[in-house]
């Protein structure tokens, strides 16, 4: 999201945003990196410190709020999006950041999640996806892969997981992006993009939980595998990847195929277009769909970004227009109504 804000002669620095609470995540938790990146980019956002508000739910991830020296509410499980909607509707001046886990957002919080995407409040949504319920010590979540062995699925989970970006798009999200804890620079870039976008900016952050789901995303950060397993999207650029950066994707009709750029006419390559929802849908489905049995790399970056009016803007407009048209009704008029009589 983007908020109308006053430049604060750039004085703020990263540590202005770290609270005096001692950080209580396990050693090696991916949440540390996310905290670091947020604190790093915040001074550059051009928002007054007192105008930042964090709303989180419940979960390891949701403890985030306590560690940011901004206004913040560590709320109840699954309700951050609903609370944040009230915050933003009531005071559009605030820069509102939702922090939530995969269970908090997509399990108990699923309804508020999809409705927030639809309503498009001008807020930022950071989903820390570690594909597990961590605070409760390791049960499968709606993003855990089928077959996963956890404390509540000792014989393997039998559930098809959600694909968060696909779900968000289906719910009419206006901004969908993905990044990961182990790529600080990339995350910083995405956080800034999210902030700049007017509307609900949904950012899925792959986050490692060394205790209950270690290494779930290492394939996308480890040198050996990263190049083959991850695509870093750039608007207007082809979807390049591969150890030698020589692989790309082409669309045969509606089916993506992996090609080698050297055997291709560049014009045939799929060029990333953030504004194309059909392409965004396809990209989001690289996730877990095998097109013609081919395994695709995981896309990172801004998958989709659409400009459409935000709930808070339309609300303000409507109220302003009505105010100009009708003016404020005086309380006494409201109290009396238009049918009164006197008793003497």
């Amino acid at each position: 999201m983007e908020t109308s804000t006053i430049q604060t002669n750039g004085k703020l620095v990263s540590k202005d945003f770290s609270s005096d609470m001692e950080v209580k995540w396990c050693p090696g938790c991916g949440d540390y990196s996310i905290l670091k990146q947020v604190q790093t980019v915040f001074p550059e956002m051009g928002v007054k410190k007192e105008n930042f508000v964090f709303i989180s739910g419940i979960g390891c991830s949701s403890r985030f709020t306590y560690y940011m020296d901004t206004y913040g509410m560590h709320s109840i499980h699954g309700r951050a999006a609903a609370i944040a909607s009230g915050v933003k509707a009531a005071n559009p001046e605030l820069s509102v950041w939702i922090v939530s886990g995969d269970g908090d957002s997509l399990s108990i919080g699923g309804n508020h999640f999809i409705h927030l995407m639809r309503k498009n409040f001008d807020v930022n949504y950071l989903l820390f996806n570690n594909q597990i319920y961590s605070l409760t010590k390791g049960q499968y979540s709606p993003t855990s892969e089928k077959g996963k062995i956890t404390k509540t699925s000792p014989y393997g989970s039998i559930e098809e997981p959600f694909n968060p970006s696909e779900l968000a798009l289906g719910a009419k999200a206006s901004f969908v992006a993905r990044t990961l804890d182990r790529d600080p620079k990339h995350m910083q870039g995405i956080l800034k993009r999210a902030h700049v976008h007017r509307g609900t900016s949904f950012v899925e952050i792959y986050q490692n939980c060394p205790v209950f789901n270690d290494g779930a995303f290492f394939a996308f950060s480890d040198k050996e595998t990263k190049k083959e397993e991850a695509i870093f999207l750039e608007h207007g650029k082809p979807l390049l990847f591969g150890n030698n950066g020589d692989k790309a994707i082409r669309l045969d009709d509606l089916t993506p195929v992996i090609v080698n750029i050297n055997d291709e006419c560049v014009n045939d390559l799929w060029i990333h277009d953030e504004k194309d929802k059909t392409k965004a849908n396809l990209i989001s489905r690289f996730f877990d769909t095998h097109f013609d049995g081919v395994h695709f790399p995981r896309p990172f970056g801004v998958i989709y970004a659409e400009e459409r009016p935000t709930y808070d803007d339309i609300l303000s407009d409507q109220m302003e227009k009505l105010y100009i048209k009708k003016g404020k009704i005086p309380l006494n008029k409201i109290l009396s109504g238009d049918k009164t009589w006197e008793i003497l």
Partner: protein
Amino acid sequence: METPTKHIEKTTSKIEVDKIVIRFSGDSGDGMQLTGMQFTDTAALLGNDLNTFPDYPSEIRAPIGTVAGVSGFQVHLGSTEIYTAGDQYDVLVAMNAAALKVDLPRLKRGSIIIANAQGFDAKNLKLANYPDGVNPLENGSLDNYIVHLVDITKLTKECLSGTGLGMKEIERSKNMFVLGLLFWMFDKPLDHTLKFIRDKFAKKPEIADANVLALQAGWNYGENTEIFTTQFKVAPAKLPAGTYRNITGNHATAIGLIAAAEKSGLPLFIGSYPITPATDILQELSKYKANGIKTFQAEDEIAGICAAIGASYTGSLAVTTTSGPGMSLKTEALGFATMLEIPLVVVNVQRGGPSTGLPTKTEQADLLMAMHGRHGEAPLPVLAASSPADCFDTVMDASRLAIEHMTPVIFLSDGYIANGSEPWRFPTNENIPAIKAPMLKKLNEGETLMPYKRDENFVRPWIKPGTKGLEHRIGGLEKENGTGNVSYEPINHEKMVQLRAAKIKKIEDFIPLAKPDSGNENGEILVLGWGSTYGAIKTATRELIAEGYDVSHIHLRYINPFPKNLGELLHSYEKILIPEMNSGQLLQLIRAKYLVPAVGYSKVQGLPFATSEIKEKIIELTKTY
């Protein structure tokens, strides 16, 4: 006023009555609600005191002509003070057989029935499940009543035949004919309704004309035919001097919230999800966007209260409105608000339960849930309104306590007063006291930030995001006293549980002492009530005193905390009767707190108490031991 000129001469006697109950009853499609409201408005404008009770089916539109489809509007008007919609009817307008069937049981012997002939044809009698060949109008079953059989449909058609309107429109105007006739019977002028018709159909003059014609035809019918020979006159009531309006409980609740916002200087935010019978409040408030009032129709009740919590956090007067099922869903978030210690007004317009229950009927069975329906120790103030107009004062009070004491407050109304109406001597902006929000904008020199530091009333400061230098975090985990930081320290937890309770108890000092409302200061029997039973109890008490009984009546607006002197007061009575539209919920609270052997009187029928029921119960109690 325009009154039609008379054609023939006839002699009509005028009878003065001080109270009369009229029931307009017909099919959901017959427009009885509108008819009743128009009659009410006119009576109100002429200074009658009154009380109304709309009583309609829960189906959007049950099958035409069936008992399930009957929609009734009851108005009780008088030249003396009126506190209920009345137990029994003096006049019944029955647009069809089903209506008669439903309402006959509560019709006074000797009272007047105006029956719409067409509504009693074979088809309608069948729809109303009368046995074949049985017509109540003809089988002598109504010998104890004065029955006027009027072919309303036919007469309406006749007078509108010229207008070139379609049959559908003409049919629709028959309620105006009835209204005109009733206006004649009660000697009331047509002009208020004429104006109403002109405004309503400004864009459809031909419809307006038709309605006017029908209205006047009804009046003429009473005036000119030989059938009607008596008119009733209800003189204006001797109410306290002032300017009055007629108002329903839901409407009074809505504008009470607007007033509270204005008086506290806070923006008003409503986060709600529609539910009968609370929806009107959300609907009414959604009209005031020009006044900066924000209504957020949430995806569900949980989102409704959560959005309100978010708005409260930013410094709004935040409200969520609902009824039983929605109230149950808000439980967790309400406990969270209690833990945060932020202002929040939760409006519960009670309806028949449990579960989906009887959505359009009234009940008082959510009191104990209001008191205890949260996990852990999460006390909060509970207030209840006693009449339609009282919703205004009570919800303002609820808002004041929420804001000045930084706590969620539950305001209880119910279906009876929410939809019912009464004349209201409304206040003016000038004479409504201001509400002061404990907003903290900056710290004094050298002061450190303590978001949970309390004042002498245990109230913490309200700090809005956007306030420079006061950044801090709040949440649902237990807090360290003062700082508000997360704390698992055992003694601190106990301390905080006690402080949150002490804050609510302290409100005792900010609410009036309990005192007998009507009736004797210190009667032999105390009738203790809360909520919408007010009118019935008050009327019963007055009548019994007139009959020589020694009865007192105390009515509670504040149920948590109770008024300071309540215990002492209760102990001064020999016998205590607590009538409730539930199985004895206030009863349990009173017995537990004061160890007084109060007895309950339950009515759980989805209907308000009849005055007579309460009188009988009291008399019965005077006879015990």
